[in-house]
């Protein structure tokens, strides 16, 4: 049972406590604050066999110039990364498609604005000996990105590197959660 409703006066047993107080779907793994004028952020040892799938969130990061976030899984440096989807600029209705050839990063996995940036990435199987997949959505003050992607490498990664595609970035919080398996 994923959810249990306790009643007034009911005895809360150790078994129930262990089961239900830790039964959330998303489990916090780690978080870090991005420094000032950094070109990349490396998060190591955040992927393991404890979880198969992960959610990565970022809020409040400012680009030195407007650009995009690139993401590379640690140790997977070949042209294994495909990404495709669309981006939109607010206040108009144009849908802009984007689907580059395979490259060494998930390019433009999120937008990086000079006032504000936020994204969420669902990442599937980064630590498994299998192909990987991701879905991302991100926004700045003026633009929205929605992308999916694959990584053809079957190497297991334990971390990732997030970088600005042009210059540098400052501030904001990057957090990694694991999807509880059972």
């Amino acid at each position, binding site marked *: 049972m994923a959810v249990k409703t306790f009643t007034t006066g009911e005895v809360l047993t150790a078994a129930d406590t262990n089961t239900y107080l830790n039964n959330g779907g998303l489990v916090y*793994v*780690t978080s*870090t*604050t*991005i*420094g*000032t*004028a*950094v*070109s*990349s*952020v*490396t*998060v*190591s*040892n*955040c992927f393991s066999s404890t979880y198969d799938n992960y959610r990565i969130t970022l809020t409040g990061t400012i680009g030195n*110039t*407007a*650009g*995009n976030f*690139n993401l*590379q899984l640690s140790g997977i*440096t070949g042209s294994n990364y495909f990404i495709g989807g669309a*981006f939109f*600029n607010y206040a108009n209705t144009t849908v*802009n498609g*984007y689907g*580059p050839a395979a*490259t*060494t*990063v998930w*390019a*433009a996995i999120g*937008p990086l*604005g000079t006032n504000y940036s936020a994204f969420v990435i669902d990442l599937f199987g980064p630590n498994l000996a299998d192909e990987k997949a991701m879905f991302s959505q991100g926004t*700045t*003050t*003026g*633009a929205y*990105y929605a992308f999916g992607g694959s990584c053809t490498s079957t190497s297991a990664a334990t*971390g990732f*590197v997030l*970088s600005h*595609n*042009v210059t*540098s970035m400052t501030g904001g919080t*990057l957090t*990694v959660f694991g999807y509880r398996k059972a």
Partner: protein
Amino acid sequence: MSKPITTYHDAITGETVNREMNDDEFAEWQAIAAQYPSAEEAPTE
């Protein structure tokens, strides 16, 4: 010429440092920057 700064965070130890890229990180960063995407090739706001 100094190397770009990176934020390095270890999820196990909780350590976070902001430092110059090491040689391996710098080489990889240069390879990515040189290959793709440039500001003109990728979507921007």
